[in-house]
């Protein structure tokens, strides 16, 4: 016999988007059942770098950083190009600051250091311990008394009213058997992407075959396929790209290391640069995978290495140095020998780059800043010199269901699938061509809350 459970909102997925949505709904008086397939919650959110892109925060003001929702939106547009959904960018920009305040009000602690990273014109990476953040949201959910968490329970099929077509629940399955979860107001898909599903990755991103895949074990596209089966439209499926900076053979660190955003250059096995290193690390990843062996090296000197930020995982260079992940040498020639690139080529590449920094003009790739529109370039000249082997890693699929700005899932004809909402990595259209640091985890929280408000019928304001 199939067990049954009923709530105002059924949330599928226990990561940042799922818990943000559940908490928002519960705070507005709704009852919520949250289904998580894995035995423990957290998903890819907990494994992430913990970076959140917020603009106009009190932390920024205290550090003299002028940032606004408009500038954030402009950066997102610039990154995403024509493929990014303007309405979703507006939705993110309009709701992100309230979500920052909401997080703080719930007791979330942020690292005191703000950094500029991929796609950011000013420092706006607000860093948290992501696993702790999900645990905090989960604890706040349970404290409301309105959220019931069911782990080890995977969503299998969405249920629709045969007359109206409205989504009314989900058939789930756990070790104890099937479960009919009925939703009075709607189902929120927050089930993550599909980086752990090789078939889907091969189908949508065959060029990422040689990339490293990292993500929550449960990220196999459950929500995507359930909505797809109902005719949901998909966005950005052609934009799946690996993120640059993953050490290709290190199994201990799941995060990328972005020395390039502090002044390093990226060279291939021929000892030559191949890209403007200030671009979004999604574009760097795509360029890297086109190089011989799908790998490259970030080349830097001692001052750049010491300019890292130990509070931000993607900029924590010293820990990786201690772990033996950097290759070190007293001269560029010796470094070239160690990484087996032609000595003369690497020496020339570094010399040409330094000359370009002096002249204020990078003739080869027109790099103007450390990252996006931020930071002045620096020479690579002070020993010891370092190489960080780097390839691209697919941390998230950054594509998925088409939604409107209220996070209602739309079908292939642009019509709402009533009763069905989506948030987090399962949503497509927001990032477009490239990706800003902190916008994926940020979108999980911001869109999760918007989806919940829409589902409970209170979708205005933060």
């Amino acid at each position: 016999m199939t067990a049954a459970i009923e709530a105002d909102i059924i949330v599928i997925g226990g990561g940042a988007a799922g818990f943000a949505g559940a908490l928002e709904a519960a705070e507005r008086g709704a009852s919520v059942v949250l289904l998580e397939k894995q035995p423990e919650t957290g998903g890819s959110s907990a494994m992430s770098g913990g970076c959140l892109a917020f603009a106009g925060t009190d932390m920024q003001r205290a550090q003299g950083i002028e940032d606004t929702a408009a500038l954030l939106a402009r950066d997102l547009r610039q990154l995403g190009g024509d493929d990014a959904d303007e309405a979703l960018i507006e939705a993110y920009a309009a709701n992100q600051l309230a979500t920052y305040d909401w997080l703080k009000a719930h007791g979330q602690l942020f690292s005191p250091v703000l950094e500029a990273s991929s796609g950011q014109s000013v420092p706006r990476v607000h860093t948290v311990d992501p696993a702790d953040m999900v645990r905090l949201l989960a604890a706040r959910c349970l404290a409301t008394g309105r959220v019931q968490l069911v782990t080890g329970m995977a969503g299998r099929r969405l249920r629709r009213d045969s007359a109206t077509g409205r989504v009314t629940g989900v058939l789930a399955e756990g070790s104890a058997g099937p479960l009919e979860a009925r939703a009075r107001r709607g189902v929120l898909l927050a089930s993550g992407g599909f980086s752990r599903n090789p078939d889907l990755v091969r189908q949508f991103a065959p060029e990422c075959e040689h990339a490293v895949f990292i993500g929550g074990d449960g990220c196999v596209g459950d929500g995507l396929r359930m909505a797809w089966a109902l005719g949901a439209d998909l966005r950005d499926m052609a934009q799946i790209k690996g993120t640059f900076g993953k050490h290709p053979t290190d199994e201990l660190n799941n995060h990328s290391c972005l020395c390039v955003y502090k002044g390093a250059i990226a060279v291939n096995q021929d000892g030559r640069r191949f890209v403007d290193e200030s671009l979004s690390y999604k574009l760097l990843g795509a360029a890297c995978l086109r190089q011989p062996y799908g790998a490259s090296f970030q080349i830097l000197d001692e001052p750049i290495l010491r300019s890292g930020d130990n509070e931000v995982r993607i900029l924590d260079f010293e820990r990786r140095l201690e772990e033996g992940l950097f290759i070190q040498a007293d001269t560029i020639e010796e470094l070239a020998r160690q990484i087996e690139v032609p000595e003369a080529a690497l020496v020339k590449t570094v010399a040409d780059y330094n000359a370009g920094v002096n002249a204020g003009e990078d003739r080869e790739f027109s790099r103007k800043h450390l990252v996006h529109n931020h930071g002045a370039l620096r020479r690579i000249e002070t020993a010891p010199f370092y190489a960080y082997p780097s390839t691209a890693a697919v941390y998230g699929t950054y594509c998925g269901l088409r939604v409107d700005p209220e996070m209602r899932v739309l079908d292939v004809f642009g019509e709402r699938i009533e009763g069905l909402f989506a948030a987090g990595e399962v949503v497509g259209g927001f990032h477009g061509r490239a990706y800003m640091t902190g916008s994926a985890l940020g979108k999980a929280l911001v869109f999760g809350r918007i989806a919940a408000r829409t589902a409970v019928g209170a979708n205005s304001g933060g």
Partner: protein
Amino acid sequence: MQVVVLLAGIVDPKWRLERLALRPDTGQADETGLPKRFSPFDEAALETALKLRDAEPAVRCTAVVVGDAASDPLLRAVLAFRPHRAVRLDTSGLALWDPLAAVRLLGAALDALGAQPDLLLMGREFGDVDDGVLPALLAEARGCLFFGQAHAVTPAEDGPLAVRMRGPREEQQRLPSPALVSMTNDRGNRLRHPLMKNIALAKRETLEIVSPPPRHFARAVEARSLSVVPPPSRGAGACRILGGPLGAQVAELADYLRGWRGEVPQ
């Protein structure tokens, strides 16, 4: 100088061991399908050999992976570090927990390789089932000077120098030829990462397999059974989060610690 590094590999501890049994009538562990990796001691030995190779153009480095066909991925992993030569010594039919038989096998393998090593390197424990006796036994059988649990071997004009820590004391030994050094893992001999280029090239390399003569497979020790001991279940410990006002929590914790201190054996 001929440097030969012997590598055993272990069953990867990252994965839970669901099953383990003897293959019928062989006395060998059936490790079919279990992922293998190098132990920290294997890695220390390999990195030491690579450092010697990098420091001295005259050093010729041969890596020997000991195991059956399931160890071929380990051999490819070694090839990615570009030793001068890398071979798998086929141990089909032998369990390394039988040290006397293993010593005979390894000796025959070295002869079969045609290698007359000046320096033999291996981990302080050789594989999953050696408790540290094998390196010393092999040194004795080969007539080598033995230096155990070294954390470094450095090149020098009058012969390589092996170094180890004994409590607060550092011990050094000039190594004559032949010598056998067992390595312990240390921050300074952590195995480097191979370059992607060399990983790609290693995938295409033809593997060299050496099979010692069958007479060396005679077993001295028979194992009759083998099984997995299940780990304790998660959450089995007595654990409780203190509740109530902070003062009450502190008082309860203090009471607990007072009682706990009294139970500590003197």
